């Protein structure tokens, strides 16, 4: 059984949502719909659907919705395939998975091309795409071996699943290995790349760290690859 999880954003983008539903109906892929805004305990609701025999979890929303569901699935032992239908703006995760819009999403879902993706962890929270911080007084320590300093205003991005911006800069990163990539960007073409094989500690008293363009958390943060792997249904044009 397919379980469709609708974010509240689908109310704002009714036309897009309707277009996807029409294609799903035509392909005979209907299933149960859960509206996130009408549920108090999201984890309990998803847990219940998995116990009831959910075969695929289909998320209709943006990066914030995906991050919310990933943080629930990361604490569930079953590995139920997940599919993302991008609705509205801020859909970097779906784009990285090769799902550009809701129009082609139904066909990608019906093809069921699956890839395992490792989930990264920042303290007690999980992220799939990246986390980032912009500030010059950020202290970073990689694999408990070496520290990195930059005097200039610097953008730090820790990548698990590569996004379009990094993909176009030919930066290599795979969400299927046990390595995260730290990208440090200063003005011009001054880019640094460091592999994170164990963990990264970030300390910054002034700025918060942004996970998946969705959630901000306070420093200090310890970032690593978690033991959790989730199967995603992906498109041919994925970035990994």
């Amino acid at each position, binding site marked *: 059984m397919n379980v469709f999880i609708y974010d509240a954003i689908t109310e704002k983008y009714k036309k897009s949502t309707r277009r996807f539903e029409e294609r799903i109906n035509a392909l005979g892929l209907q299933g149960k719909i859960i509206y996130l805004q009408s549920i108090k305990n999201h984890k309990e609701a998803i847990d219940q659907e998995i116990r009831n025999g959910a075969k695929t979890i289909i998320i209709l929303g943006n990066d914030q919705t995906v991050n919310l569901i990933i943080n629930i699935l990361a604490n569930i032992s079953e590995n139920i395939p997940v599919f993302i239908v991008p609705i509205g703006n801020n859909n970097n995760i779906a784009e990285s998975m090769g799902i550009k819009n809701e129009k082609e999403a139904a066909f990608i879902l019906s093809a069921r091309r699956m890839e395992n993706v490792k989930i990264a962890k920042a303290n007690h929270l999980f992220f799939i795409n990246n986390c980032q911080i912009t500030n010059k007084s950020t202290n970073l320590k990689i694999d408990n071996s070496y520290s990195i*300093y*930059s005097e200039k205003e*610097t953008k730090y991005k820790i990548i698990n699943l590569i996004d379009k911006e990094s993909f176009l800069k030919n930066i290599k990163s795979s969400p299927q290995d046990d390595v995260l990539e730290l990208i440090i960007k200063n003005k011009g073409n001054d880019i*640094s790349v460091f*592999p994170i094989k164990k963990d990264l500690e970030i300390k910054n008293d002034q700025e918060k760290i942004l996970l998946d363009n969705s959630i901000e958390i306070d420093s200090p943060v310890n970032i690593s690859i978690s033991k959790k792997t989730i199967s995603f249904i992906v498109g041919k044009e994925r970035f990994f």
Partner: protein
Amino acid sequence: MFKKDQKFENFTEAETIIGESVLVKGNFESNGNLIINGSLEGEIKTKGAILAGEKSKINANISAQEMMVKGNVVGNLNISDYLAIGENAKILGDIKCSQISIERGAEINGQVSISSQTNKKEKDIEVERIETDNSL
């Protein structure tokens, strides 16, 4: 230019890149290639190759398979295969390698030991200062 130097000219497949505005402190270990355009203090060990660019400032003992130095290095270099030293390079430390090329203008202060892996002959050059003269 040696044929082997051409490898460094197209050296883009690096696992780690240290940009100009970045300082790294500590023990850096890797299995892959490394490009250094910024500063590094500590120790470097890699099974791959290192390209230290013209703006690099390295204060570290270095172990690698191959290396090209175009910037400043203070520390000992232990290169298992090939070491190329560019015209603007300044090295203060001892060097051990199997093959070496030094461009005119490079400065080396230290003991250079070249031990060929193929014929097992070892050449030791003890110097207080090697400074190639590019005015000739």
